[in-house]
């Protein structure tokens, strides 16, 4: 992941935001969607994505559905009710964080 330290803390929120928009997604789809939205600037590696998905699943924020697709099984992730509520909170936190960073890094723009 590019600038991994900066993005690391936001990975879960990014995943939850995408799932909120798309309803349900599978691992590869998430990596490609992020790549597409950031025009290739942000590349989520498999080594970061799957542990994050499993953690969110264990916390009860994500639910899974397994389906057979082209000779293989595919695991889709979607937000649970608890996950949907938590997404709103985390997005608000992230928004606040971005605003604070903006006021520090570029004070003129924040007004």
């Amino acid at each position: 992941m590019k600038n991994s330290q900066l993005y690391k803390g936001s990975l879960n929120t990014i995943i939850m935001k995408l799932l909120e928009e798309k309803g349900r997604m599978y691992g590869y789809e998430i990596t490609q969607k992020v790549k597409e939205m950031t025009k290739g600037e942000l590349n989520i590696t498999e080594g970061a994505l799957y542990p994050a998905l499993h953690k969110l699943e264990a916390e009860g924020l994500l639910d899974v559905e397994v389906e057979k697709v082209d000779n293989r099984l595919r695991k889709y992730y979607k937000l649970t009710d608890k996950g949907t509520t938590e997404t709103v909170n985390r997005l608000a936190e992230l928004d606040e964080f971005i605003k604070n960073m903006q006021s520090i890094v570029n004070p003129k723009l924040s007004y």
Partner: protein
Amino acid sequence: MNITKENIQFINQYLQKSDVLFDDLRLELIDHIASAVSFKMVDENLDFYDAFKIYMIENKKSILKAGMVNQSVNFKLAFSKFFGFLILKEVVIFSVVFLFLGMNIYKNTLLENLERFQINLMILLLSFSILWMILSYGIFKKRLFVVENNFILLTLLFQLMNFARILWDNNLQIEFYITLVFGLSFTLYIIFMCKISLEFYRKNKNLHEIIH
């Protein structure tokens, strides 16, 4: 471009040989690799094996990292799941009743047969573990990370009990309470494992027809 059944078996074997041991983790990585490779085949007009080779040269490290087990993260996950189970209303009621019966009605019987009770507890744990292995490896022939990960808690509980017994070996009263608390913990752990396994199986029936 469609990936054939043989291609999927090839990816599966590759991951197995690379020590991605858990079937549920491998299932996701197979789909991930197959999706990426099929796009590469179309975009760069390659056959499966060339596309696979190029993709794995670029991404092997990250793919294998996703299939590995991080003990510290896994312990936190297992512990938080178990803790979530412990605070369920039914579990709290069961625990209170269990401790009440143990400390009052059956106290004398337990005190007289403390050693036998401890041996029975060990037999219960051993039988549970053996039955578990027979079901997983012998009948379902699957290793599921989501479920197996929780065995880390059993090891911890077992070690804690041995440590506590050594520490208070000469105090019958304390040994009684320790045995009772660990008796409850092991019983709850077994119920917890059965519950999450059943829930997992119900939700993921498809996993049991995974590629061989």
